[in-house]
């Protein structure tokens, strides 16, 4: 079955340093990949998603590149901000599974001054 692995449960950074959150996946087909972000006491919301034409999605300074050869969709940002502190979920949608999203375990990012 499909699965998503986020190896870091907790990441702590100093403001201004680069961010990289890891995401690898297993899927039978060629899935769409997503990053959802959940700030404290809020609902998860979409941050960005992969494109069908291999363009690199970007939003709020974050970007991610889908590497099919390594089954990865790592999330990156060049300079962390305090407001980036949140729980980040990588998720996949498998064309063979209809509307279902499979989420990873999540990575909690804390950015300190």
């Amino acid at each position, binding site marked *: 079955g499909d699965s*998503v692995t*986020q190896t870091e*449960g907790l990441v702590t950074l100093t403001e201004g340093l680069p961010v990289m959150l890891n995401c690898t996946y297993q899927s039978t087909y060629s*899935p*769409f990949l997503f990053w959802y972000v959940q700030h404290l006491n*809020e*609902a*998860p*919301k*979409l941050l960005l*998603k992969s494109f*069908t034409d291999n363009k690199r999605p970007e939003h709020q300074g974050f970007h991610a590149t889908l590497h099919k050869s390594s089954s990865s969709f790592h999330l990156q940002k060049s300079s962390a901000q305090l407001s980036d502190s949140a729980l980040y*979920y990588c*998720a996949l*949608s*498998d*064309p063979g*599974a*209809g*509307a*279902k*999203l*499979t*989420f*990873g*375990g*999540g990575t909690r990012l804390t950015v300190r001054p």
Partner: protein
Amino acid sequence: EAAVTQSPRNKVTVTGGNVTLSCRQTNSHNYMYWYRQDTGHGLRLIHYSYGAGNLQIGDVPDGYKATRTTQEDFFLLLELASPSQTSLYFCASSLTGLNYAEQFFGPGTRLTVL
């Protein structure tokens, strides 16, 4: 932006109790979902629906029933609640079931089973 509301926001019940969690979306979305969120497990899909009267089984359905009464309303039922069902429950909706469709989440219901 899609509006998804959930009620109650917090619920405490006892083992064996009967609980209904409610979700309403007002953006005419066809698909609705119920997830549970637990530390280390992320978000796990319990049930979902693509329209009134339809129900699809998710990945962790045991102990849960669900019913979609209208396009707007989706209910999650725990008929014999157990402590293992203590969790934060999210409802979500999407316009389509296409696999690149964005899901919009409600604010969550925190359920405690004593």
